[in-house]
């Protein structure tokens, strides 16, 4: 996104809005990882404690999700930049 034509009051406002959204997005991402890893790794409810197998699965799942998400982010940024370049002002 190009904020260069915004004046300083507008840029300050946008910065606050974006910071707030980033916080909310991080929270949502966090709980979506928890939900996804819980659903994939836990299916035995004869005990309320995580088994060591379940715990390992959860740790790998969270780890992999972060790496997945980072990789998607990198590709996304590249493709988005391409799209912006080819269609100025539109994408």
């Amino acid at each position, binding site marked *: 996104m190009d904020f260069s034509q915004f004046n300083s009051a507008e840029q300050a406002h946008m910065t606050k809005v974006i910071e707030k959204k980033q916080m909310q997005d991080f929270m949502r991402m966090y*709980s979506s990882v928890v*939900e996804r890893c*819980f*659903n994939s790794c*836990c299916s035995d409810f004869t005990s309320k404690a*995580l088994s060591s197998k379940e*715990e390992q699965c959860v740790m790998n799942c969270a*780890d992999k999700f*972060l790496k997945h*998400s980072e990789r998607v982010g990198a590709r996304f940024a590249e493709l988005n930049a391409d799209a912006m370049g080819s269609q100025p002002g539109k994408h």
Partner: protein
Amino acid sequence: MSFLGRGASTPAGGVNHERMEMAINEIEMITDVFNRIVSSCHNKCISPRYSEGDLNKGESVCIDRCVAKFFEVNKKVGEKLQSAGANAAPS
């Protein structure tokens, strides 16, 4: 205590917007987690045949363990994300 520590940043009778916002974020986070637990544990514990309206013994015990396990997963993932830093989120 009103002229020491962080309490000092709020004008008497006024509203500290930052503190409000943090509290609201916390409520939204908790609500989001709660809703995901309701949904996940319903999928894990409740048979979708619905031949009766009451929870049977097995479903009730399953729910209790499911909620506890979800909390454990939430804690493990939280530790993981904290150690990984917040470098996976796109801006």
